[in-house]
């Protein structure tokens, strides 16, 4: 589904954010990307739907080359859902309109159909009664669930999560993770940047560990948690799991 081959990315001439990254996500697979901050994991996931351009290598999404100048990027992006660290709901639109905007403007759905779809997804994330509210009236956890529903409204073939729980208060993390676990169990293809090792342990098929722009470890979940091969991954795990 997602193939990442020898990807290089530079910010300016002096800082290489990604170094020769190669990995892939199969259909229906859940891949967790972890690593210390500044390791390039968020950058990597943003390259998958070309929110960040890459300078070397290639990324292929459902058979289409993402970094090909001829690729219709808006169309490609509309088929991949993305959830951001800071939710990025549109603050000037009601929740239901947040869910409908792209359905109508990108997919050309009729307003009534878009609303029906949006309400169904709001019900799924347990927020039906908030449809008429504005994002600022909701808690962080609720906003992030809306953001997931907004992405799902586009009927994506895969979902990208960029640290979806990092900006949340601890008591709200689980309500978001619950939605993501359900999604994973339904067979959604997911690439998730997160520090939530509990989530990784529960639903991930594979775990990728990144450090300083490189993919240091790319292993089956059991292997990663059982006996990480690299020192850096071992250190990272011991730090994160020690509490």
């Amino acid at each position, binding site marked *: 589904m997602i193939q990442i081959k020898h990807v290089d990315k530079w910010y300016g001439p002096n800082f290489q954010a990604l170094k020769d990254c190669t990995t892939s996500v199969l259909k229906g697979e859940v891949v967790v990307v972890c690593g210390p901050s500044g390791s390039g994991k968020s950058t990597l996931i943003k390259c998958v*739907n070309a*929110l960040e351009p890459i300078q070397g290598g290639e990324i292929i999404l459902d058979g289409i080359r993402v970094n090909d100048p001829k690729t219709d*990027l*808006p*169309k490609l*992006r*509309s*088929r*991949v*859902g*993305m959830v*951001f660290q*800071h939710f*990025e*709901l*549109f*603050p*000037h639109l009601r929740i239901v309109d947040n869910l409908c*905007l*792209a359905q109508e*403007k*990108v*997919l050309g759905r009729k307003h009534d159909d878009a609303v029906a779809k949006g309400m169904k997804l709001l019900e799924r994330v347990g927020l039906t009664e908030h449809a008429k509210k504005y994002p*600022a009236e909701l808690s962080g956890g609720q906003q992030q669930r809306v953001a997931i529903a*907004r*992405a799902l409204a*586009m009927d994506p073939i895969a979902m990208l999560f960029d640290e979806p729980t990092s900006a949340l208060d601890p008591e709200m993390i689980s309500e978001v993770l619950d939605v993501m676990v359900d999604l994973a169990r339904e067979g959604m293809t997911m690439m998730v940047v997160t520090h939530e090792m509990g989530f990784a342990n529960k639903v991930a098929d594979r775990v990728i560990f990144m450090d300083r722009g490189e993919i240091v470890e790319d292993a089956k979940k059991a292997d990663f948690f059982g006996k990480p091969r690299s020192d850096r991954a071992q250190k990272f795990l011991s730090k994160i799991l020690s509490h």
Partner: protein
Amino acid sequence: MLGSFDFDVIRRSLPYLFFEGMRFTLTLTALAAVGGLVFGTLIALMRLSGYRLLGRVAGFYVDFMRSLPLVLVIFWFYFLVPYIGQWLTGASRPITVGAFASSLITFIMFEAAYFSEIMRAGIQSISKGQPAAASALGLTYGQSMRYVVLPQAFRNMLPVLLTQTIVLFQDTSLVYVLSIPDFLGAASKVAQRDGRLVEMYLFAALVYFTISCVASYCVRRLQARIAIVR
């Protein structure tokens, strides 16, 4: 001293002052504000487009307009446009442009420079995550601007835009140099005709002051409300 004043001249000329003069002033203000906002937003988008040439052109335009006294622009534009029109259309004599059309175009062009800076600040105040989220949903650059970024930029900047419009309302009195009967022009005409300069100019000042003050107060109220919502 007040005894020698004739304030009745104001009462007698009220219908003319307001139905002719003030109507013109308000029409010009409203049309120039809307036109200035539309063109100003376009200029702001050009400057932020990332295309260097477009940005340069827009930047030059803004600096150029802001470096000239408005009254000169009004004046030159009024006298030059007929000749520019002639040159553009290839007509045999200078085309006729009404004083209203000429002043309206001038104000739109002039205000566009100021509104563009306000909208540019407004667009830049929106976090990068918003257009990123719009793109991630498949919206094109244009759609993301139209449905996500500009509505928020406009809402955030509304108090500043309205304040600029109050300034514009006062500035429209400069069409006086084209002897157009806007509110000030109308007052001036009556003043000259009846020889009641002090009374009429005092009254005109009072009217501009009152309207601008009330409008400023309303903008402050609005600002407080927006601040709460955010």
